[in-house]
């Protein structure tokens, strides 16, 4: 029996799988008829193939399905990062906007509102009305604003409750007293009213603690402008009653307003900061929870 060539082996293998063309199959059939060894080889290969095909399928020991919680695709890094950064930038923009808004409002309040307005919002409207009335009444009597270093009540005959105020402040207010009036009449604050504070006044403000200022401004009992025995004093003022003329309406110690507004500004800005950080944290938490459904 002649050994089988590699080419014949491939021919037999292809014939097992039915991969021969009709011509090739016919040629092989002729060879098998004449070559007994080739026929035996072909029969053995066919038997072996039958053994392999009859092998029972292998049973997997477990399932290989994937766990969606582990293998679920994650969101795109760029998309997630983009949303995350928008959240952070938005939070900072919110904080900045709120902070600037509060700063502007506070600046306007400091230049416009007297101490009573800052300390006692309920009396704010009444005091403003009172100031307007008094300015109308005193505009003819009082010297024009900025005329020298004269204090508000240029006429010494007028009762100067402002002097009591100055005693508390340990400093005599300067042209600010008369200077604020025109601005209030016009109904809009001017930066000049704030910037015209003499250095001596700011020194007095510095000597006065914030606690004193708050107590002075917040409590009518501590307000020297208010006569405790007089039921018509500003602290208990009925808004429809005429304003006492003997009081100096414009003797508002602006430094007190500043001393009180600074903590308020910080408070609001802190609230805005906390809100912004909370918003950013909430967005980050939401994104994380969205990643893991």
């Amino acid at each position, binding site marked *: 029996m002649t050994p089988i060539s*590699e080419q014949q*082996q*491939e021919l*037999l*293998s*292809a014939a*097992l*799988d039915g*991969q021969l063309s009709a011509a090739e199959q016919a040629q092989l059939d002729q060879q098998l008829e004449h070559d*007994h060894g080739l026929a*035996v080889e072909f*029969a*053995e*290969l066919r*038997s*072996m*193939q039958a*053994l*392999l*095909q009859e*092998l*029972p*399928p*292998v*049973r*997997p*020991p*477990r*399932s*290989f*399905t*994937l*766990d*969606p919680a582990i*293998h*679920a*695709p994650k969101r795109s890094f760029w998309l997630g990062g983009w949303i995350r950064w928008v959240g952070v930038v938005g939070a900072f923009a919110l904080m900045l906007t709120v902070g600037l808004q509060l700063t502007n409002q506070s600046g306007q309040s400091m230049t416009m509102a007297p101490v009573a307005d800052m300390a006692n919002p309920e009396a704010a409207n009444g005091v403003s009305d009172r100031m307007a009335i008094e300015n109308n009444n005193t505009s003819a009597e009082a010297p024009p604003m900025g005329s020298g270093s004269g204090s508000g009540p240029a006429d010494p005959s007028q009762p100067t409750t402002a002097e009591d105020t100055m005693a508390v402040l340990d400093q005599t207010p300067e042209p600010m007293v008369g200077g604020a009036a025109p601005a209030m009449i016009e109904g809009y604050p001017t930066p000049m009213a704030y910037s015209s504070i003499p250095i001596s006044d700011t020194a007095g403000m510095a000597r006065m603690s914030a606690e004193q200022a708050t107590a002075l401004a917040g409590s009518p009992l501590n307000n020297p402008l208010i006569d405790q025995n007089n039921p018509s004093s500003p602290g208990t003022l009925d808004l429809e009653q005429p304003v006492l003329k003997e009081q100096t309406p414009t003797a508002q110690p602006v430094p007190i307003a500043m001393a009180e507004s600074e903590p308020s500004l910080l408070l609001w800005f802190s609230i805005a900061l906390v809100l912004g950080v909370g918003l950013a944290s909430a967005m980050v938490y939401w994104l994380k929870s969205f990643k893991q459904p």
Partner: protein
Amino acid sequence: MTDAERQWVSAAKDGDVEAFNQLVRMYEGRVYGLAYRMLGDSDSAADVAQDTFISAFKAIKRFREGSFAAWLLRIATNACYDVLRAQKRRRTTSMDQLLAGDDDSPGEQFEDQSLPLDQHMINRELQAAIQAGLATLPEDQRAVLIMCDIQGFAYEEIAAATDTQLGTVKSRLSRARAKLRDYLKSRELLPTAER
């Protein structure tokens, strides 16, 4: 590919794990069977099968047209080659353990447990001999023989799964059959043909 298979592949490309699990259920027997016949060890075969499906899910967006089964078996075959190379480096051969009568014999893995005991023992011995004969083949020939004669894939699918030409598949298959035939014949496990 069937229409359902196409839909599952499409959904899996969009990240649908459940759709991919349908494909896993469809092919896990074949993938594990290939790995088991290639490696002769159930634990390694299970690891390869699991890694194959994880890798396939990660790379499924790169699957274009053609046979999904062939693409999956290509991943599995490459994973088997990696394991066999690692086993060679560690100088440990699970086939030796198999021939030494390890508990993890191929007969334990087969589904048909309903045969009579004597027939079951004969089959188990034959299957062990075939598995041992497969282990004597070169890896590339072994893979082709398993895919063609045991799993029934067409030549074209085998060529795609092994990333080779059709002629290479025919050549490897022919050599593998001749070698395994000689191995079984030498152990008198092959029916003798009339001469």
